[in-house]
């Protein structure tokens, strides 16, 4: 995945539980990395593996990516780079699975952050709902908003360092218009894919996002405006 993952258990849990969570991320990396020629994703992409031979995880990811391709009118595209690369969904999905497992294991209060994609449940060690900042796209040491809650998935897709690197899959050119898109809901894989799709859509992504039931958003445009939906659980 090429990122940094942090896991914070605010109450309960054990070192063994953390080990299990990180073993899961290792497994995801080995299976879904597009950098590793022997990963299952790469083998499937080269046709060395049929869908029937694929692992349940890969089949589930491919099925969800196909759904999201339809739901986003093709703007979320696991083949946008010309080869299979479901990374725009996998990172959020892997964190969501980790969070679900933590909850099932009794760690009701936790925060998992994988490269800026965040899933929180319960309360922080301070005994209050988690507070998640949204990174300011131009002043990266600061944030431009705060969402808070006890059961939130927060995904941000942005183009603020490498320039416009999200490709509009229809035009094949870099997407423009939106500098940073944060999507907040319950499922992090979906939020991650929505955020990526909206950046690819450009300005029209704002209207599209505002129609996603169950998901709120905060969008920063290229000209420095912050747009947010009423459903966004902003901190006071």
């Amino acid at each position, binding site marked *: *995945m*090429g*990122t*940094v*993952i*942090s*896991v*914070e*258990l605010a109450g309960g849990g*054990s*070192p063994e539980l*953390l080990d299990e969570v*990180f073993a899961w991320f*290792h497994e995801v*990396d080995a299976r879904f*990395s597009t*950098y*590793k020629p022997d990963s299952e994703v790469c083998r499937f992409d080269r046709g060395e593996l049929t869908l029937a031979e694929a692992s349940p995880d890969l089949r589930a990811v491919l099925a969800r990516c196909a759904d999201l391709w339809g739901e986003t009118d093709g703007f979320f595209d696991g083949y946008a780079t010309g080869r299979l690369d479901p990374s725009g969904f996998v990172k959020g999905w892997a964190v969501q699975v980790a969070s679900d497992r933590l909850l099932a294991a009794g760690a009701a209060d936790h*925060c998992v*952050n994988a490269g*800026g*994609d*965040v899933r*929180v449940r319960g309360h922080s*060690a301070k005994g209050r709902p988690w*507070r*998640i*900042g*949204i*990174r300011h796209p131009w*002043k*990266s*040491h*600061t*944030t*431009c*908003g*705060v969402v808070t809650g006890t059961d939130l998935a927060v*995904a*941000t897709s*942005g183009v*603020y*360092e*490498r320039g416009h690197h999200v490709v509009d899959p229809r035009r094949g050119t870099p997407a423009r218009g939106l500098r*940073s898109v944060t999507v907040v809901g319950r499922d992090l894989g979906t939020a991650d894919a929505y955020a990526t799709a909206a950046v690819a859509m450009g300005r029209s992504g*704002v*209207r599209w996002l*505002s*129609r996603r039931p169950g998901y709120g*958003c905060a*969008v*920063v*445009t290229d*000209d*420095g*405006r*912050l*747009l*947010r*939906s009423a459903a966004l659980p902003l901190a006071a």
Partner: protein
Amino acid sequence: MRRAVLAVAGLAAGTSLLVVAKGGTPARPAAVAADAGGPVPGGSPTPGPEPTVAPEATTKAPPSPETTARPRPRRSTQEAPPPPPPPQSNTVVGPRVENPYGAVQVVIELDGSRIVDVRTLEMPETEARSQQLSALAEPQLRAEALREQGADLDTVSGATETSESYRRSLRAAIERMKRGERD
């Protein structure tokens, strides 16, 4: 509270995957780093030379730990060289990596040999153009000028950590850490 960080500093050539975990320590590791790096207590009328982690980032860096380069007051005793000092720092600073939009530099914080936090010292800061507010409003959403806000955060959502320069700085910091280097 248990907190752990997994750094997957993967690059196309030579992926390195590192799991680091910390369990059962009640205090936040950042506090340990700050304590270890506090100023030398009393006695001297003028503060010693401030070791800087990175010149451009001094305002954002935590108090820097004392380094072996600092002049020692008791140098005159020649006999019995003191035992090698234990590592006086639990931070490792990665290199400043430039990109067309700014620069990135990460710091990893350690508890023993385990990474417990990854922070950034310097990140791209292009000029916000909020003064160019367009009159166009998207009717579906509330629009407002972008401004800095957010305090007392538990975590941050943002895409920066996936950037290439972030990974390069992080990977170099991890390699330095594995060689036993500390800042």
